Protein backbone atom coordinates (compact mmCIF):
# COMPACT_ATOMS: atom_id res chain seq x y z
CA UNK A 1 0.00 0.00 0.00
CA UNK A 2 1.25 3.49 -0.76
CA UNK A 3 1.15 5.70 2.31
CA UNK A 4 1.50 9.45 2.34
CA UNK A 5 5.03 9.17 3.78
CA UNK A 6 6.21 7.10 0.83
CA UNK A 7 8.67 9.05 -1.32
CA UNK A 8 8.97 8.19 -4.99
CA UNK A 9 12.59 8.12 -6.16
CA UNK A 10 12.32 5.76 -9.10
CA UNK A 11 11.71 8.08 -12.06
CA UNK A 12 13.73 5.87 -14.43
CA UNK A 13 11.28 3.01 -13.82
CA UNK A 14 8.27 5.13 -14.60
CA UNK A 15 6.82 8.58 -13.99
CA UNK A 16 3.39 9.69 -12.87
CA UNK A 17 1.21 10.96 -15.67
CA UNK A 18 1.23 14.75 -15.46
CA UNK A 19 -2.27 16.01 -14.54
CA UNK A 20 -2.10 18.47 -17.45
CA UNK A 21 -1.59 15.47 -19.72
CA UNK A 22 -4.51 13.56 -18.21
CA UNK A 23 -6.74 16.58 -18.68
CA UNK A 24 -5.97 16.73 -22.40
CA UNK A 25 -6.63 13.00 -22.73
CA UNK A 26 -9.99 12.80 -21.00
CA UNK A 27 -12.32 14.07 -23.78
CA UNK A 28 -10.92 11.43 -26.12
CA UNK A 29 -12.22 8.60 -23.97
CA UNK A 30 -15.80 9.79 -24.00
CA UNK A 31 -16.83 12.62 -26.35
CA UNK A 32 -14.26 12.45 -29.11
CA UNK A 33 -14.22 8.69 -29.28
CA UNK A 34 -14.18 8.19 -33.02
CA UNK A 35 -11.84 5.87 -34.83
CA UNK A 36 -9.08 8.15 -36.18
CA UNK A 37 -9.01 6.00 -39.30
CA UNK A 38 -12.70 6.56 -40.09
CA UNK A 39 -12.48 8.85 -43.07
CA UNK A 40 -16.12 9.50 -43.73
CA UNK A 41 -17.66 11.24 -40.71
CA UNK A 42 -16.88 13.99 -38.20
CA UNK A 43 -16.30 11.55 -35.31
CA UNK A 44 -13.41 10.07 -37.23
CA UNK A 45 -12.12 13.43 -38.43
CA UNK A 46 -11.97 14.88 -34.91
CA UNK A 47 -10.05 11.90 -33.61
CA UNK A 48 -7.71 12.02 -36.59
CA UNK A 49 -7.07 15.71 -36.04
CA UNK A 50 -6.11 15.02 -32.41
CA UNK A 51 -3.79 12.18 -33.37
CA UNK A 52 -2.09 14.25 -36.06
CA UNK A 53 -1.58 17.17 -33.66
CA UNK A 54 0.03 14.73 -31.23
CA UNK A 55 2.26 13.41 -34.01
CA UNK A 56 3.51 16.97 -34.63
CA UNK A 57 4.21 17.41 -30.91
CA UNK A 58 6.19 14.16 -30.72
CA UNK A 59 8.15 15.01 -33.87
CA UNK A 60 8.94 18.48 -32.59
CA UNK A 61 10.81 17.36 -29.47
CA UNK A 62 13.36 15.46 -31.57
CA UNK A 63 13.49 17.85 -34.54
CA UNK A 64 11.71 15.45 -36.88
CA UNK A 65 8.77 15.74 -39.26
CA UNK A 66 5.36 14.47 -38.20
CA UNK A 67 5.26 11.95 -41.05
CA UNK A 68 8.32 10.25 -39.61
CA UNK A 69 6.60 9.31 -36.33
CA UNK A 70 5.01 5.88 -35.90
CA UNK A 71 2.91 5.35 -32.80
CA UNK A 72 3.56 2.08 -30.95
CA UNK A 73 2.61 0.54 -27.62
CA UNK A 74 5.84 1.68 -25.98
CA UNK A 75 9.60 1.71 -26.25
CA UNK A 76 9.84 -2.09 -26.11
CA UNK A 77 7.74 -2.36 -29.24
CA UNK A 78 9.60 0.54 -30.86
CA UNK A 79 12.93 -1.18 -30.24
CA UNK A 80 11.58 -4.48 -31.54
CA UNK A 81 10.22 -2.80 -34.65
CA UNK A 82 13.43 -0.89 -35.33
CA UNK A 83 15.69 -3.92 -34.99
CA UNK A 84 13.53 -6.69 -36.45
CA UNK A 85 11.99 -4.34 -39.02
CA UNK A 86 15.32 -3.18 -40.45
CA UNK A 87 16.89 -6.62 -40.18
CA UNK A 88 13.94 -8.20 -41.94
CA UNK A 89 13.74 -5.68 -44.75
CA UNK A 90 17.43 -5.60 -45.65
CA UNK A 91 18.33 -9.21 -44.90
CA UNK A 92 19.09 -10.12 -48.49
CA UNK A 93 21.84 -7.52 -48.64
CA UNK A 94 23.15 -7.12 -45.11
CA UNK A 95 23.02 -9.30 -42.00
CA UNK A 96 25.11 -7.65 -39.29
CA UNK A 97 23.97 -5.44 -36.40
CA UNK A 98 26.06 -3.67 -33.78
CA UNK A 99 24.77 -2.93 -30.30
CA UNK A 100 26.24 -2.72 -26.84
CA UNK A 101 26.22 -4.84 -23.68
CA UNK A 102 24.51 -2.25 -21.47
CA UNK A 103 21.44 -1.83 -23.66
CA UNK A 104 17.98 -2.40 -22.23
CA UNK A 105 16.88 -6.03 -22.13
CA UNK A 106 14.36 -5.43 -24.92
CA UNK A 107 17.18 -4.56 -27.32
CA UNK A 108 19.46 -7.36 -26.13
CA UNK A 109 16.71 -9.96 -26.19
CA UNK A 110 15.62 -8.86 -29.66
CA UNK A 111 19.23 -9.22 -30.81
CA UNK A 112 19.38 -12.74 -29.34
CA UNK A 113 16.23 -13.54 -31.28
CA UNK A 114 17.77 -12.20 -34.49
CA UNK A 115 20.90 -14.27 -33.86
CA UNK A 116 18.73 -17.36 -33.76
CA UNK A 117 17.37 -16.32 -37.14
CA UNK A 118 20.88 -16.19 -38.52
CA UNK A 119 21.82 -12.53 -38.13
CA UNK A 120 25.25 -11.65 -36.78
CA UNK A 121 25.37 -9.33 -33.80
CA UNK A 122 28.36 -7.51 -32.33
CA UNK A 123 27.93 -6.54 -28.68
CA UNK A 124 30.31 -3.67 -27.95
CA UNK A 125 31.68 -3.55 -24.42
CA UNK A 126 31.64 -0.29 -22.47
CA UNK A 127 34.37 1.62 -20.72
CA UNK A 128 34.51 2.10 -16.95
CA UNK A 129 32.37 5.22 -17.32
CA UNK A 130 29.62 3.31 -19.14
CA UNK A 131 30.24 4.79 -22.59
CA UNK A 132 31.16 2.84 -25.71
CA UNK A 133 34.61 3.33 -27.21
CA UNK A 134 34.15 5.04 -30.60
CA UNK A 135 37.25 3.34 -31.97
CA UNK A 136 35.72 -0.02 -31.13
CA UNK A 137 32.57 0.98 -32.96
CA UNK A 138 34.55 2.08 -35.99
CA UNK A 139 36.38 -1.24 -36.02
CA UNK A 140 33.15 -3.21 -35.69
CA UNK A 141 31.47 -1.64 -38.73
CA UNK A 142 31.85 -3.83 -41.83
CA UNK A 143 30.29 -3.96 -45.29
CA UNK A 144 27.51 -6.30 -44.10
CA UNK A 145 26.54 -3.98 -41.21
CA UNK A 146 22.99 -2.73 -41.65
CA UNK A 147 22.31 -1.13 -38.26
CA UNK A 148 23.96 0.29 -35.17
CA UNK A 149 21.70 0.41 -32.12
CA UNK A 150 23.09 2.33 -29.16
CA UNK A 151 20.90 3.76 -26.42
CA UNK A 152 20.94 7.51 -25.79
CA UNK A 153 20.80 7.42 -21.96
CA UNK A 154 21.32 4.32 -19.85
CA UNK A 155 18.36 3.47 -17.65
CA UNK A 156 20.43 2.19 -14.74
CA UNK A 157 23.27 4.69 -14.49
CA UNK A 158 22.06 7.70 -16.49
CA UNK A 159 25.12 8.20 -18.68
CA UNK A 160 24.69 9.82 -22.09
CA UNK A 161 26.31 8.08 -25.08
CA UNK A 162 28.10 10.30 -27.66
CA UNK A 163 25.16 10.36 -30.07
CA UNK A 164 26.53 12.97 -32.47
CA UNK A 165 29.80 11.10 -32.94
CA UNK A 166 28.05 7.75 -33.36
CA UNK A 167 25.60 9.25 -35.83
CA UNK A 168 28.35 10.77 -37.95
CA UNK A 169 30.29 7.52 -38.01
CA UNK A 170 27.22 5.59 -39.10
CA UNK A 171 26.24 8.08 -41.77
CA UNK A 172 29.78 8.10 -43.20
CA UNK A 173 29.70 4.32 -43.35
CA UNK A 174 26.21 4.12 -44.84
CA UNK A 175 24.85 2.27 -41.81
CA UNK A 176 21.53 3.08 -40.15
CA UNK A 177 21.70 4.44 -36.60
CA UNK A 178 18.95 3.52 -34.14
CA UNK A 179 18.88 4.89 -30.63
CA UNK A 180 16.66 3.84 -27.75
CA UNK A 181 15.90 7.29 -26.34
CA UNK A 182 13.32 6.22 -23.75
CA UNK A 183 15.42 7.73 -20.95
CA UNK A 184 16.68 10.68 -22.97
CA UNK A 185 13.70 12.40 -24.56
CA UNK A 186 12.62 15.38 -22.52
CA UNK A 187 15.84 15.24 -20.48
CA UNK A 188 18.50 16.16 -23.02
CA UNK A 189 18.13 18.07 -26.30
CA UNK A 190 17.89 15.67 -29.21
CA UNK A 191 17.89 16.55 -32.89
CA UNK A 192 17.68 13.66 -35.32
CA UNK A 193 19.20 15.67 -38.15
CA UNK A 194 22.10 17.16 -36.24
CA UNK A 195 22.82 13.75 -34.71
CA UNK A 196 22.25 11.73 -37.89
CA UNK A 197 19.77 9.47 -36.15
CA UNK A 198 17.74 7.24 -38.49
CA UNK A 199 15.49 5.51 -35.97
CA UNK A 200 14.64 6.58 -32.44
CA UNK A 201 12.47 4.98 -29.77
CA UNK A 202 10.29 6.97 -27.37
CA UNK A 203 8.31 5.85 -24.33
CA UNK A 204 5.24 7.69 -23.02
CA UNK A 205 5.40 6.75 -19.36
CA UNK A 206 9.03 7.81 -18.89
CA UNK A 207 8.14 11.40 -19.75
CA UNK A 208 5.02 11.96 -17.62
CA UNK A 209 2.74 10.58 -20.29
CA UNK A 210 0.51 7.52 -20.13
CA UNK A 211 1.67 3.92 -20.08
CA UNK A 212 0.90 1.78 -23.13
CA UNK A 213 2.07 4.28 -25.76
CA UNK A 214 5.37 5.05 -27.38
CA UNK A 215 6.69 6.06 -30.75
CA UNK A 216 9.33 5.14 -33.27
CA UNK A 217 10.91 7.81 -35.41
CA UNK A 218 11.71 6.43 -38.87
CA UNK A 219 13.73 8.71 -41.15
CA UNK A 220 12.28 9.51 -44.58
CA UNK A 221 15.30 11.17 -46.20
CA UNK A 222 17.37 9.10 -46.76
CA UNK A 223 14.58 6.64 -46.39
CA UNK A 224 14.69 3.81 -43.88
CA UNK A 225 12.44 0.89 -44.68
CA UNK A 226 10.99 -1.58 -42.23
CA UNK A 227 9.28 -4.90 -42.38
CA UNK A 228 6.14 -4.59 -40.25
CA UNK A 229 5.78 -6.76 -37.16
CA UNK A 230 2.03 -6.28 -36.90
CA UNK A 231 0.00 -6.72 -40.05
CA UNK A 232 -3.50 -5.48 -40.61
CA UNK A 233 -5.21 -2.39 -41.93
CA UNK A 234 -1.97 -0.71 -42.96
CA UNK A 235 -2.07 2.15 -40.48
CA UNK A 236 1.09 4.10 -39.67
CA UNK A 237 2.37 3.98 -43.25
CA UNK A 238 1.97 0.23 -43.20
CA UNK A 239 4.63 -0.16 -40.54
CA UNK A 240 2.29 -0.73 -37.61
CA UNK A 241 -1.28 -1.77 -38.18
CA UNK A 242 -4.01 -1.39 -35.59
CA UNK A 243 -6.41 1.36 -34.58
CA UNK A 244 -4.54 4.15 -32.85
CA UNK A 245 -5.48 4.71 -29.19
CA UNK A 246 -6.49 8.35 -29.57
CA UNK A 247 -6.37 9.30 -25.85
CA UNK A 248 -2.92 7.75 -25.45
CA UNK A 249 -1.61 9.46 -28.58
CA UNK A 250 -2.93 12.78 -27.31
CA UNK A 251 -1.28 12.07 -23.94
CA UNK A 252 2.08 11.28 -25.49
CA UNK A 253 1.88 14.41 -27.65
CA UNK A 254 1.04 16.64 -24.70
CA UNK A 255 3.78 15.02 -22.58
CA UNK A 256 6.30 15.81 -25.32
CA UNK A 257 5.06 19.38 -25.65
CA UNK A 258 5.36 19.97 -21.89
CA UNK A 259 8.79 18.33 -21.74
CA UNK A 260 10.04 20.41 -24.64
CA UNK A 261 8.78 23.62 -23.06
CA UNK A 262 10.02 22.91 -19.55
CA UNK A 263 13.14 20.83 -20.12
CA UNK A 264 15.81 23.46 -19.62
CA UNK A 265 14.25 24.85 -16.45
CA UNK A 266 13.45 21.41 -15.10
CA UNK A 267 16.97 20.13 -15.69
CA UNK A 268 18.45 22.91 -13.59
CA UNK A 269 16.03 22.21 -10.76
CA UNK A 270 16.60 18.44 -10.83
CA UNK A 271 20.37 18.89 -11.05
CA UNK A 272 20.27 20.99 -7.88
CA UNK A 273 18.25 18.28 -6.14
CA UNK A 274 20.51 15.46 -7.22
CA UNK A 275 23.61 17.44 -6.18
CA UNK A 276 21.98 18.02 -2.82
CA UNK A 277 21.26 14.30 -2.47
CA UNK A 278 24.77 13.28 -3.48
CA UNK A 279 26.61 15.72 -1.24
CA UNK A 280 24.19 15.15 1.62
CA UNK A 281 24.95 11.44 1.55
CA UNK A 282 28.69 11.57 0.84
CA UNK A 283 29.28 14.25 3.45
CA UNK A 284 28.09 11.82 6.11
CA UNK A 285 29.11 8.45 4.71
CA UNK A 286 32.47 7.19 3.44
CA UNK A 287 32.94 4.49 0.78
CA UNK A 288 30.05 5.60 -1.41
CA UNK A 289 30.70 5.28 -5.15
CA UNK A 290 28.82 6.98 -7.98
CA UNK A 291 28.50 4.49 -10.83
CA UNK A 292 29.26 5.98 -14.23
CA UNK A 293 30.84 8.99 -12.55
CA UNK A 294 33.16 10.19 -15.29
CA UNK A 295 30.66 10.52 -18.10
CA UNK A 296 28.11 13.14 -19.13
CA UNK A 297 24.91 12.19 -17.35
CA UNK A 298 21.30 13.20 -16.95
CA UNK A 299 20.69 14.97 -13.66
CA UNK A 300 17.81 12.79 -12.47
CA UNK A 301 19.82 9.61 -11.97
CA UNK A 302 22.20 8.79 -9.13
CA UNK A 303 23.34 5.19 -8.99
CA UNK A 304 25.33 4.77 -5.79
CA UNK A 305 27.18 1.80 -4.36
CA UNK A 306 27.32 1.73 -0.57
CA UNK A 307 30.30 -0.53 0.07
CA UNK A 308 29.86 -3.30 2.67
CA UNK A 309 26.06 -2.94 2.78
CA UNK A 310 23.98 -5.22 0.57
CA UNK A 311 21.50 -3.40 -1.65
CA UNK A 312 18.32 -5.28 -0.87
CA UNK A 313 19.08 -5.26 2.85
CA UNK A 314 19.51 -1.51 2.54
CA UNK A 315 16.24 -1.09 0.66
CA UNK A 316 14.46 -2.76 3.53
CA UNK A 317 15.96 -0.15 5.86
CA UNK A 318 14.79 2.74 3.70
CA UNK A 319 11.35 1.35 3.04
CA UNK A 320 9.73 4.77 2.84
CA UNK A 321 11.81 5.49 -0.24
CA UNK A 322 10.71 3.83 -3.48
CA UNK A 323 14.07 3.20 -5.12
CA UNK A 324 15.58 0.44 -7.21
CA UNK A 325 18.55 -1.79 -6.47
CA UNK A 326 21.21 -3.30 -8.72
CA UNK A 327 21.58 -6.05 -6.18
CA UNK A 328 20.97 -9.63 -7.15
CA UNK A 329 18.52 -10.36 -4.44
CA UNK A 330 15.68 -8.47 -6.01
CA UNK A 331 15.75 -10.82 -8.96
CA UNK A 332 15.42 -14.56 -9.05
CA UNK A 333 18.66 -14.94 -10.99
CA UNK A 334 20.86 -13.94 -8.03
CA UNK A 335 23.17 -12.19 -10.48
CA UNK A 336 23.89 -8.55 -9.79
CA UNK A 337 23.12 -5.91 -12.43
CA UNK A 338 24.62 -6.77 -15.83
CA UNK A 339 25.02 -3.07 -16.51
CA UNK A 340 27.18 -2.48 -13.44
CA UNK A 341 29.16 -5.65 -14.16
CA UNK A 342 29.78 -4.40 -17.71
CA UNK A 343 31.33 -1.22 -16.30
CA UNK A 344 33.79 -3.38 -14.42
CA UNK A 345 32.13 -2.67 -11.07
CA UNK A 346 33.21 -5.55 -8.84
CA UNK A 347 30.46 -7.98 -7.99
CA UNK A 348 30.60 -7.13 -4.31
CA UNK A 349 30.06 -3.45 -5.10
CA UNK A 350 27.36 -4.22 -7.64
CA UNK A 351 25.46 -5.93 -4.85
CA UNK A 352 25.50 -2.71 -2.84
CA UNK A 353 24.03 -0.35 -5.42
CA UNK A 354 20.89 1.73 -5.21
CA UNK A 355 19.44 3.81 -8.03
CA UNK A 356 17.90 7.09 -6.95
CA UNK A 357 15.73 8.59 -9.67
CA UNK A 358 14.60 12.21 -9.32
CA UNK A 359 12.04 13.92 -11.49
CA UNK A 360 9.42 16.55 -12.08
CA UNK A 361 7.60 16.16 -8.78
CA UNK A 362 10.63 15.57 -6.54
CA UNK A 363 11.04 18.16 -3.80
CA UNK A 364 13.79 19.37 -1.50
CA UNK A 365 11.89 17.81 1.40
CA UNK A 366 11.95 14.45 -0.42
CA UNK A 367 15.68 14.72 -0.88
CA UNK A 368 16.34 15.73 2.72
CA UNK A 369 14.24 12.85 3.99
CA UNK A 370 16.08 10.48 1.66
CA UNK A 371 19.47 11.65 2.93
CA UNK A 372 18.37 11.16 6.52
CA UNK A 373 16.95 7.67 5.91
CA UNK A 374 19.89 6.47 3.82
CA UNK A 375 22.52 7.68 6.28
CA UNK A 376 20.65 6.11 9.18
CA UNK A 377 20.19 2.74 7.46
CA UNK A 378 23.71 2.50 6.05
CA UNK A 379 25.20 3.38 9.44
CA UNK A 380 23.11 0.73 11.16
CA UNK A 381 23.83 -1.94 8.56
CA UNK A 382 27.54 -1.22 8.48
CA UNK A 383 27.63 -1.66 12.25
CA UNK A 384 26.34 -5.17 11.68
CA UNK A 385 28.35 -5.91 8.53
CA UNK A 386 31.23 -8.38 8.93
CA UNK A 387 32.86 -6.83 5.86
CA UNK A 388 32.82 -3.34 7.34
CA UNK A 389 34.29 -4.77 10.57
CA UNK A 390 37.12 -6.47 8.70
CA UNK A 391 37.92 -3.36 6.69
CA UNK A 392 38.01 -1.29 9.89
CA UNK A 393 40.48 -3.85 11.30
CA UNK A 394 42.67 -3.29 8.26
CA UNK A 395 41.92 -6.61 6.58
CA UNK A 396 41.93 -6.58 2.79
CA UNK A 397 38.80 -8.44 1.72
CA UNK A 398 40.53 -9.55 -1.46
CA UNK A 399 42.99 -11.64 0.56
CA UNK A 400 40.26 -13.71 2.13
CA UNK A 401 39.44 -17.02 0.56
CA UNK A 402 35.67 -16.81 0.28
CA UNK A 403 33.52 -19.84 -0.16
CA UNK A 404 31.42 -18.77 -3.15
CA UNK A 405 28.10 -20.48 -3.16
Amino acid at each position, binding site marked *: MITSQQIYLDYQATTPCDSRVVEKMLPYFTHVFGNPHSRNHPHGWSAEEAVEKARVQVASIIGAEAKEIIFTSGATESNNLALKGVAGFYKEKKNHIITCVTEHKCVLDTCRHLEQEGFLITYLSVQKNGLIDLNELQKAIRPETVLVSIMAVNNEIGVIQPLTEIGKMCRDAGVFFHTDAAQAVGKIPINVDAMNIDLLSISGHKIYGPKGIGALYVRRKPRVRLQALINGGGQERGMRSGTLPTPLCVGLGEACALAQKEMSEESVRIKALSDRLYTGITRQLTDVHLNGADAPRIPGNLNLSFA*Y*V*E*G*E*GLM*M*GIKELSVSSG*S*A*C*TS*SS*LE*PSYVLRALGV*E*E*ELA*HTSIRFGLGRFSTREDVDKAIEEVVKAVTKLR*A*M*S*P*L*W*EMVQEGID*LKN*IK*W*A*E*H
Partner: protein
Amino acid sequence: MAYSSKVIDHYENPRNVGAFDKNDLTVGTGLVGAPACGDVMKLQIKVNKEGIIEDAKFKTFGCGSAIASSSLITEWVKGKTLEEAQAIRNTEVAQHLALPPVKIHCSILAEDAVKAAIADYQAKAAGSIDKVK
Protein backbone atom coordinates in the same frame (compact mmCIF):
# COMPACT_ATOMS: atom_id res chain seq x y z
CA MET B 1 8.47 -8.71 -2.75
CA ALA B 2 6.75 -8.65 0.61
CA TYR B 3 8.57 -9.97 3.66
CA SER B 4 7.02 -12.04 6.41
CA SER B 5 6.40 -10.23 9.68
CA LYS B 6 9.04 -12.42 11.35
CA VAL B 7 11.69 -11.40 8.83
CA ILE B 8 10.78 -7.76 9.34
CA ASP B 9 10.92 -8.16 13.12
CA HIS B 10 14.41 -9.72 13.04
CA TYR B 11 15.61 -7.16 10.51
CA GLU B 12 14.37 -4.22 12.51
CA ASN B 13 15.33 -5.61 15.91
CA PRO B 14 18.19 -7.97 15.20
CA ARG B 15 19.12 -10.15 18.19
CA ASN B 16 22.73 -10.68 19.25
CA VAL B 17 24.51 -8.36 16.85
CA GLY B 18 28.14 -7.98 17.79
CA ALA B 19 31.42 -9.78 18.14
CA PHE B 20 33.48 -11.78 20.62
CA ASP B 21 37.27 -11.87 20.71
CA LYS B 22 37.99 -14.51 18.11
CA ASN B 23 41.24 -15.48 19.83
CA ASP B 24 39.38 -16.46 23.01
CA LEU B 25 39.57 -20.25 23.34
CA THR B 26 35.95 -20.47 24.45
CA VAL B 27 34.83 -18.74 21.24
CA GLY B 28 34.18 -20.41 17.90
CA THR B 29 33.91 -18.23 14.79
CA GLY B 30 32.24 -19.18 11.52
CA LEU B 31 32.58 -16.97 8.43
CA VAL B 32 30.56 -18.18 5.46
CA GLY B 33 29.36 -16.81 2.13
CA ALA B 34 31.13 -14.40 -0.20
CA PRO B 35 30.80 -10.67 -0.93
CA ALA B 36 30.52 -11.45 -4.63
CA CYS B 37 27.45 -13.55 -3.96
CA GLY B 38 25.80 -10.80 -1.95
CA ASP B 39 25.86 -12.42 1.46
CA VAL B 40 28.45 -13.02 4.14
CA MET B 41 27.66 -14.22 7.66
CA LYS B 42 29.96 -14.17 10.64
CA LEU B 43 28.57 -16.16 13.54
CA GLN B 44 30.31 -16.66 16.87
CA ILE B 45 29.49 -18.97 19.76
CA LYS B 46 30.79 -18.83 23.31
CA VAL B 47 30.96 -22.27 24.92
CA ASN B 48 31.11 -22.89 28.66
CA LYS B 49 32.90 -25.68 30.53
CA GLU B 50 29.87 -27.93 30.32
CA GLY B 51 29.96 -27.72 26.55
CA ILE B 52 26.86 -25.56 26.38
CA ILE B 53 26.65 -22.55 24.05
CA GLU B 54 26.03 -19.79 26.55
CA ASP B 55 26.11 -16.88 24.15
CA ALA B 56 26.17 -16.16 20.42
CA LYS B 57 26.81 -13.11 18.25
CA PHE B 58 26.56 -12.39 14.54
CA LYS B 59 27.27 -9.86 11.87
CA THR B 60 25.78 -10.24 8.41
CA PHE B 61 26.21 -8.57 5.03
CA GLY B 62 23.14 -9.49 3.04
CA CYS B 63 19.49 -9.00 2.36
CA GLY B 64 16.78 -8.85 5.01
CA SER B 65 16.25 -12.61 4.88
CA ALA B 66 19.95 -13.27 5.44
CA ILE B 67 20.01 -10.90 8.41
CA ALA B 68 16.85 -12.46 9.84
CA SER B 69 18.16 -16.02 9.37
CA SER B 70 21.37 -15.28 11.23
CA SER B 71 19.58 -13.33 13.96
CA LEU B 72 17.14 -16.19 14.52
CA ILE B 73 19.76 -18.90 14.58
CA THR B 74 21.83 -17.07 17.22
CA GLU B 75 18.74 -17.17 19.41
CA TRP B 76 18.25 -20.85 18.77
CA VAL B 77 21.80 -22.01 19.50
CA LYS B 78 21.92 -20.36 22.91
CA GLY B 79 21.60 -22.90 25.73
CA LYS B 80 22.17 -25.81 23.38
CA THR B 81 25.00 -28.32 23.44
CA LEU B 82 27.27 -28.37 20.40
CA GLU B 83 25.54 -31.52 19.21
CA GLU B 84 22.11 -30.00 19.53
CA ALA B 85 23.24 -26.84 17.71
CA GLN B 86 24.82 -28.97 15.03
CA ALA B 87 21.46 -30.60 14.44
CA ILE B 88 19.60 -27.38 13.55
CA ARG B 89 18.44 -27.65 9.96
CA ASN B 90 18.06 -24.80 7.51
CA THR B 91 14.54 -25.95 6.71
CA GLU B 92 13.48 -25.13 10.28
CA VAL B 93 14.87 -21.60 9.86
CA ALA B 94 13.22 -21.19 6.47
CA GLN B 95 9.92 -22.46 7.80
CA HIS B 96 9.96 -20.30 10.92
CA LEU B 97 10.69 -17.15 8.88
CA ALA B 98 8.39 -18.18 6.00
CA LEU B 99 11.18 -17.61 3.49
CA PRO B 100 10.20 -17.79 -0.19
CA PRO B 101 12.08 -20.33 -2.37
CA VAL B 102 14.45 -17.69 -3.75
CA LYS B 103 15.63 -16.95 -0.17
CA ILE B 104 16.23 -20.52 0.99
CA HIS B 105 19.95 -20.04 0.46
CA CYS B 106 19.90 -17.51 3.32
CA SER B 107 18.80 -20.22 5.74
CA ILE B 108 21.38 -22.64 4.35
CA LEU B 109 24.04 -20.04 4.99
CA ALA B 110 22.87 -19.67 8.60
CA GLU B 111 23.10 -23.43 9.15
CA ASP B 112 26.57 -23.44 7.57
CA ALA B 113 27.64 -20.57 9.80
CA VAL B 114 26.72 -22.49 12.95
CA LYS B 115 28.56 -25.57 11.72
CA ALA B 116 31.62 -23.49 10.83
CA ALA B 117 31.62 -21.83 14.26
CA ILE B 118 31.41 -25.22 16.01
CA ALA B 119 34.22 -26.61 13.84
CA ASP B 120 36.36 -23.59 14.65
CA TYR B 121 35.70 -23.97 18.38
CA GLN B 122 36.53 -27.67 18.29
CA ALA B 123 39.70 -27.12 16.28
CA LYS B 124 40.86 -24.50 18.76
CA ALA B 125 40.00 -26.72 21.71
CA ALA B 126 41.90 -29.64 20.18
CA GLY B 127 44.85 -27.37 19.51
CA SER B 128 45.00 -26.16 23.11
CA ILE B 129 44.92 -29.73 24.44
CA ASP B 130 47.83 -30.57 22.18
CA LYS B 131 49.76 -27.64 23.57
CA VAL B 132 49.08 -28.73 27.17
CA LYS B 133 50.40 -32.19 26.40
